[in-house]
């Protein structure tokens, strides 16, 4: 347990915005502060990435702030779950009182995403991997999926189910990129164009603009604010690799360690979690993460998610916004996992609101947000709860 809470959460404009990165940041941050009943003057900590080499510094200046604490750890999509841990520590240590975690990307409008990834010629990957033409990050996740199917004799359809369920949630979220796109079927996923086998374009997350922000402060202060505090119950992280050949077994990720740490700090187990927001860069990412976090045994995720369990109305509600697959994926999606977890815990999910127990009709009490960055490179788990 920690003595820090999320007190505000918001999205920037999403989809294809035609707006700059800093505009999206400057939408999300004041919206999240307004949600919390706070103003820019209250902010003394900023954590962000994806703006420039000096990301947090850039955002601080843009907002006209001189923060006492910043963090721009670059860890891809999981950075924001890591920032929650850092922010908790900074607030508990007294270095900051009110921290904003934010992100914005205009990658769809700017057409800045490429299948080859970013080439950094001084890295070992440049000498020992790029000569072979892997798509970054697509081919790495594809190799993980191939290994998973081989190792466990798992059904290809289990991967597709992740995308099908995400679409079902997105159809209930007016802000989802695929809202109104109609349902997706397993056959649709399998029949889509293969990009890097066995994964098709429908196994991969969207490429959209988007962003968001969350605001954290001490639990004591949070209790005086306008929203019910969403307490940070636990956190954990694990960093494993930058290259495609470094990890011995692609089917066992660093979410083993990040999850163990987060559940340990929270004094909880997977059975206590009412709603899950799990980074779905690719369909395989979700299966590997659920197993690593201990929601089932290794090789058993296909059974775990079968029979509509992760779809609306199912017993294991997962990626209730529609996820990176059908809602929004602005390059580093992790901040939006936190935003959706907060919404669900506050009972603000609208047509997609999860109930803690089908019988009770009560809002969920415990949410898990898990970020995965790079090529299964960085893993960070956050457990959140309401009283």
């Amino acid at each position: 347990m920690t003595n820090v809470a999320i007190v505000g959460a918001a999205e920037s404009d999403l989809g294809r915005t035609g707006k700059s990165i800093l505009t999206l940041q400057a939408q999300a941050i004041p919206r999240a502060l307004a949600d919390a009943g706070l103003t820019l003057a209250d902010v003394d900590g900023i954590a962000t990435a994806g703006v420039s080499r000096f990301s947090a510094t850039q955002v601080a200046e843009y907002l006209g702030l001189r923060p006492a604490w910043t963090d721009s750890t670059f860890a891809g999509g999981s950075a924001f779950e890591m920032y929650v841990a850092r922010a908790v520590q900074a607030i508990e240590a007294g270095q900051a009182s009110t921290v904003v975690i934010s992100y914005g990307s205009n990658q769809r409008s700017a057409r800045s995403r490429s299948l080859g990834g970013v080439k950094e010629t001084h890295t070992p990957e440049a000498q020992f991997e790029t000569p072979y033409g892997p798509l970054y990050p697509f081919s790495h996740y594809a190799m993980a999926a191939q290994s998973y199917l081989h190792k466990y004799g798992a059904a290809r359809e289990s991967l597709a189910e992740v995308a099908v369920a995400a679409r079902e949630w997105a159809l209930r979220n007016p802000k989802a990129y695929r809202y109104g796109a109609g349902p997706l079927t397993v056959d649709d996923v399998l029949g889509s164009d293969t990009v890097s086998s066995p994964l098709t374009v429908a196994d991969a997350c969207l490429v959209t603009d988007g962003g968001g922000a969350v605001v954290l402060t001490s639990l004591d202060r949070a209790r005086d604010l306008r929203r019910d505090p969403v307490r940070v119950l636990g956190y954990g992280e694990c960093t494993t690799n930058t290259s495609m050949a470094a990890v011995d077994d692609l089917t066992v990720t660093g979410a083993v360690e990040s999850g163990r740490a987060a559940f340990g700090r929270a004094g909880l187990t997977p059975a206590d979690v009412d709603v899950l927001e799990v980074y779905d860069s690719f369909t395989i990412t979700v299966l590997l993460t659920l197993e690593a976090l201990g929601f089932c045994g290794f090789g058993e995720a296909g059974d775990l998610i079968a029979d509509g369990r992760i779809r609306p109305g199912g017993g294991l509600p997962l990626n209730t916004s529609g996820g990176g697959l059908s809602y929004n994926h602005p390059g580093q999606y992790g901040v939006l996992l936190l935003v959706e977890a907060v919404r669900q815990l506050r009972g603000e999910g609208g047509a997609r609101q999860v109930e803690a127990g089908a019988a009770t009709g009560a809002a969920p009490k415990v949410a898990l947000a898990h970020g995965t960055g790079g090529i299964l490179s960085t893993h960070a788990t956050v457990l959140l709860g309401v009283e």
Partner: protein
Amino acid sequence: MSTEIPLPDDVTAPYWAGTEEKRLLIQRCAECGRFQHYPRYMCTGCGRGDLEFVEASGEAAIDTFTVVHRPLPGFEAPYVVARVRLAEGPILLTNIVDCPPDDVACGQAVRLTWRPLEDGRHLPLFTPAKEG
């Protein structure tokens, strides 16, 4: 092709020099005996720096693979990107060549082959081992 492969650095120079003679060199730690790839200045097993390059047997098995259908510039789809585990232990990223992509499988035995680069270096690739 060769222009797309960055030049060797202080630590990787012996590896690339070996490819000029079609020798696949991997590092072995004199302290703890660990093999590692790619080459590093220190051993990831024990942290020490007494490393020597030894020639790999060229025998390997496919750990996992993917068939790329949307080629990067300079590549012709479909092509097979694979992680192969050398008999000595380390995993390499490579291509599986001279084989229909549909015939590639996890666990398959493969052997080393080479593609010449314009500058005299060679790129290590793998192909299915002869059966029997």
